Structures are given as C-alpha cells and as structure tokens.
C-alpha cells in the first residue's frame, strides 16, 4: 500500500519541489502535442456540428450528437454485434491459448519447436494475415473450400453469406489472438510453484480440481489485465473486418468501430463520429473498471 513519506525521497538539499516537472517537461511537451491536444480536440468536436457542410461554420451543439447516436436503432444492432464479436473472439483466444499453454508447460519432447510454430500467427503482420485468410475463404479456389471438397463437404459461402462471413472474421481474429494469450498464460504457469500441485496430489486432488483451485487462481493476476486489454483491442479492431469482409455482405459484419470509421472517413461527419467514439470509449471504460473490480484483478493471487 502507498505510504506517505515524511520527506520526499530523492529531493536533494536545496532542490525545489517543482524540479521533477522541469525534468519531465520535454516528455510532457511531447505528450501535450501528440496525446493531450488531439484527445481534447476530439472531445470538443463531439459537441460540435462539424461536417462537410459545416466545415468552416462549426457551432457548439451540446449533446445533440450524443442524442442522435443513442436514438439510432442501428446503434443497438451494431452494439449487439460488437458484443458477440468481442466475447467470441476473447473467449476462444483465451480458451485456446490457455489450453495450449498448459500443454506446453508439461514435459514434452520438441517443446521449443511447437512453441515456435504456435507463436507464428503473432509474428505475421495483421494486414498480411487477414488478406491471406481472405484468399483462403474464397468460394471457388480458396484453400478452405478446396479442403472441404476433398472431404466431400459442400463448399461454404464464406464471404457472401452474412452468418458465415461473421464466423470467418471471428475465426481470423481468434487465430491472430490466441498466441498472445498462450504466451501470457505460459509466463503465468511457469511462476506457479510445483509444490502446490504436489500438495494437491497428496490430498488426492483430481486434474480438474488442480486446474480450478491452483492454476486458475494463480493465473488471475496475469489473465485479468490480458483479458481487459484484449477486450478493448477487439472491441476497437477495424483491421480484420475491414480487410476480410469490408463489413459486408450487406453491412452484416459491421461493428460499432467500423461504423464510426465510415461516418468519419466516408461521410465526413466529424462531430457525430467523435461523439460516437466517445460513447465507445465510455463503454470500454465502464467495462474495464467493472471487470478489474469484480475479479479483483489488480491484487496478487496470494493476497
């Protein structure tokens, strides 16, 4: 816990309390230019009517944009789809990542090679991976359908049927996401003392019991931040959907952020898009706070 020191540590005799600010000024100046100003500008925009037609006649319109966002029915459709997208992506990445990490944490011949191959998706640039997957999903000559054909399964319209297209983007994102979870879990697993499992063995604990009462709680300190980050990233991820389906067919794989991207970039509705982004930010902020609080993720496992 934080203790209030009687004397500020590190302050040399004769030094003024504002010294630290002077030292950090270059960094603060950079932050102000590249982070604080754009952020503040974005917040300001959210309260204005700035758009293509009001490019030079920007007016402050209070909460009009926010009202327009939350009264639009599409918002809730997109919200629902964003949730399905985020939950499926994160659940599958965590489950697959954890499962592989547990396997890799055992005594396994050729472990290093397996690990290397499993990390590979992480090492490939997202852009390249997404475009490769898109080609593999192609109906007539895509690898996946060719394999299905060999297995006498009829080809799947991966990119032209809404449900399949949504499954396709989730598949790609899980493929991109599980190595990160695997590495995080592997790191966590290696820090669990082996004695705990031995003790459980003495008490006659089953494999499930050991997982439920030792592995999972001991992984919590690393998993909670990883899952929080992953949820935020996934919720805000435009790349994969943009590159694989482009939101299609029929905008049926659009999520909240890809919609914001379109209103901002295609329709130049700057004010509206900023308000929309702020709402997404608030949703994620509330989620992150609740999640960390509910799982007490900021505490160590043994506390």
């Amino acid at each position, binding site marked *: 816990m934080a203790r209030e020191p009687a004397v500020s540590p590190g302050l*040399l005799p*004769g*030094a003024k309390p504002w*010294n630290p600010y*002077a*030292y950090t*000024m*270059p960094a603060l*100046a*950079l932050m102000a*230019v590249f982070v604080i100003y754009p952020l503040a500008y974005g917040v300001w925009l959210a309260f204005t009517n700035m*758009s*293509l*037609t009001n*490019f*030079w006649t920007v007016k402050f319109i209070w909460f009009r944009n926010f009202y*327009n966002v939350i009264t639009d029915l599409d918002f809730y459709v997109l919200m629902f789809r964003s949730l399905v997208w985020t939950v499926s992506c994160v659940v599958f990445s965590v489950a697959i990542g954890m499962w592989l990490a547990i396997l890799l944490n055992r005594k396994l011949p050729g472990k290093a090679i397996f690990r290397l191959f499993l990390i590979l998706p992480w090492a490939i640039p997202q852009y390249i991976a997404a475009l490769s997957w*898109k*080609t593999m999903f*192609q*109906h*007539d*000559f895509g690898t996946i359908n060719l394999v299905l054909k060999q297995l006498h399964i009829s080809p799947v*319209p991966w*990119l*032209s*049927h*809404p449900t399949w297209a949504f499954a396709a983007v989730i598949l790609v994102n899980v493929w991109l996401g599980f190595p990160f979870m695997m590495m995080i879990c592997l790191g966590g697993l290696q820090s669990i003392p082996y004695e705990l499992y031995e003790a459980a063995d003495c008490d006659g604990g089953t494999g499930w019991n050991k997982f439920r009462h030792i592995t999972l709680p001991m992984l919590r300190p690393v998993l909670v931040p990883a899952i929080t980050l992953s949820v935020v990233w996934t919720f805000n991820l435009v790349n994969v959907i943009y590159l694989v389906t*482009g*939101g*299609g*067919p*029929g*905008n*049926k794989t659009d999520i909240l952020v890809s919609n914001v991207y*379109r209103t901002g*970039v*295609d*329709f*130049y*509705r700057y004010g*509206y898009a900023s308000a929309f982004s702020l709402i997404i930010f608030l949703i994620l902020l509330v989620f992150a706070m609740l999640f960390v609080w509910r799982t007490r993720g900021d505490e160590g496992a043994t506390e």
Partner: protein
Amino acid sequence: MTLRKKAVAIVLSAFLAGSLLAGCAATKETKKEPDQPAAPKVVELVFWEQEEAAEKVFDPILQKFMDANKNIKITRVHYETEKLRTNFLTAVQGNQGPQVVFGPDDNVGVFATAGVIQPLDSFFDASFLSTLNKTALDGNRLNGKLWGVPDRIGNQLMLIYNKALIPNAPANTDAVYKFAADFKAKNADKYALVFNQTEPFWLAPWLGAYGGSVFNDKNEPTLDTPAMVSAFKLMQDLKAKGVIPKESDYDAAEALFKDGKAAMIINGPWSVGGYLDKKMDIGIAKIPQVSGAGWPKPYTSTKAYFVSKLVTDKDMKDAVKTFIQYMNSEETQKTLAAIHKQWPTNTKANESDVIKNDPVMKQAAAQLESATPMPIIAQMRVVWDTWKPQMQLVIAGQATPEKAAKDAQADCVKKIAEMK
C-alpha cells in the same frame, strides 16, 4: 542543481518542444514574405497526388519542369485516394497543406462543399482552358463553377476477353448466356464472365442499360426504380445460370481471369497493362448490350488538378498556374497518356497519332462513346455506401431485388439528410 543549470534545462526543453512546431510553420512564413523585386525568389510548391506508380509517371516530368522553371521547386507527396482526401481536408483546416492536389474528379463534391479549394474560372486564362476537352471540363463543374483542371478522361469499365477462350466478344447478353452454357458444359471449373461483384461501380453500367441513374435532375437519389430492380435481377440471373461465380470480389475476378479460368472480365483501363504483362492475348470491347434493353453505360471520370483555397499570394498563384498549365500541355499529356492509357484532355494531344493509334486506347474509345459521367456531388458517397450492401445481399440471395432497391433508397435518403 544551481539556478543557472535549471534555467538552461528549461530553455533547452523549450527549444526541443519548439522545434516540433517549427516544421509546420515554415511554409507559412515563406508565403508571407513581402515582394522583393530584386532577388528572384524560389517558390516552393507542394503537390499531392494519388497516381499509381507515381514516381515513374510524374518524377521525370517534374524534373523537366523544374529545369525549365528555376524559380519553382516542387515537392511531390503520394497518397492513396481516400487518405489524400481526408489529409487534405485536415491540412487546410489547419491553414496548411499542399498548394496543388491531383486526383479523381469526385473530389470536387467533397472539396468544394467543404470549401478547401478555389474556383478556377478566372484563375486561368480562357485561352488555356479552351485547349481542353469541354466535356471533361464540365465534369469538374459544380454549382456553375469550375473546380478542377482535368488531365485525362476515362476510368470506364469495358469488356476484356481472353482470345484463347473466346475468339470474339459477344454483342449482347443473349450471346453471353449462350456462350456460357456451351463453355460451362466443356469447362466445369471455369466461368464465362467475372467482375467485382461486391462494388456497385460494376453494377452502374447495367443500371444505365435499363435507363436508370442514381440521381434525378434535382440531385435527389433515385435508387428505388424499375431500372434498379431490373439491374439487380440481371445480377441474380447471371449467377443463377452460372455465368458468373457464386462470389467474387475484385481480386478474385482478377485472379480467375489471369489464370485463364474466366473467359471475360469487366474491368477498367488500369487493368489492361497487367494482362499484357502476363502475355495474354486479349481483346477489348464494349460491355455487351442487354438484350431487350440498351447498352450498358459505365461511369467515366476525369482526374484533375485542384488548387488549395490557401493559394492567395501572387507569386504562389503564378507558380501554380505555370505548373498546372505545363502539366496539361500537349507534350506532357502525350507522355503521360502513353503510360496511363487513358484519353488525354488536351484536344491536340487527343488527336495526335501516337494516341489514336495506340491499340488499347483505340479499343477503349468505343466504350467511352457509351458511357456516362460519374456524379461528382458529395451525396454520391452516400449512394455508394448504401447501394453496396444491397447489391451484395441481392447477389448472395439474401434479399429480393424489389426489397433491396427499396432499402437502398430509404437508407440513402436517411444518410444524406444526416450528412447536412
């Protein structure tokens, strides 16, 4: 730490922070310099473009221009089409950015509406403007003003066929169906025709064939018309009869055609070079007439030079004028056309033998006769965005043509209203 050291540290940090902003301020200051008659000053002109293979296309010409005009220095910056649009809007809003921008003419709708470019009717002399094709110039007019100087006209979709698979282009859709039936019987894994089935740019020609258009005279969207329904039905029919693949985007269509798995492709002039590089024996023809209706009318557009609204200084104005006139001279346009294979707008360049006898441009000319200018108003962006999902749903069999047309119209009207 002594007070002096502290002062030095603060000053240094301030310098560091200040130097970040110095780059942005530089161009502005040179512009504000008072006119000095004695020393010839060098005008630095920044030029943004979105040309494919820009260094090959533009750099030799820019070098030639700078050699001939020692007082003008040009910095060329390349952007992808959409990036160029958004970055230019942002830059001008911050009183920055290039003096000259080059890109497709549908920039006019966005730039003129936002007020980031200036009208050019009186910027250039009438004698210069009269050297350019009138239709191309008209394509750059909005609200009665000229906003861009076009250097080429084209971009129209055409029928490109692989002579090894189909010796002659079919004249109408009946002939296409007939060919496809025979072709499919012999080659189960091949297609008669491919095109990008995910973008309405490829649907627009067929809409035109049925006499439809996306806007009426008052620039109101007209997506729910019998013509639109017919165009959607044609797409469904082509798919149902196996003429076109079950799904195909741009890349897939290109791949099928290049691999000899598709006899014909509907694509634009930009793609021809790629087929020739692959040593394919190709022919170019008009998109086949719709049996019982008219000829398809693909969209044509021009690429044009636009001038930032911030160009107000006299020296800069002169430099911009000299530059754009040079880029649209007969000689420059001929050189450029040989590379980009689209019709130059300079009437003299257009009539020269070099252009007229070019095999690709010669064949493309036929399609240009049956084409329609792509609308340049900003609302067109909403049309693309609302038309596209419905086209995809129709082709995927997820919506009936009637419902798709109705939904596209409703969505479009709503989004146009929201844009204001």
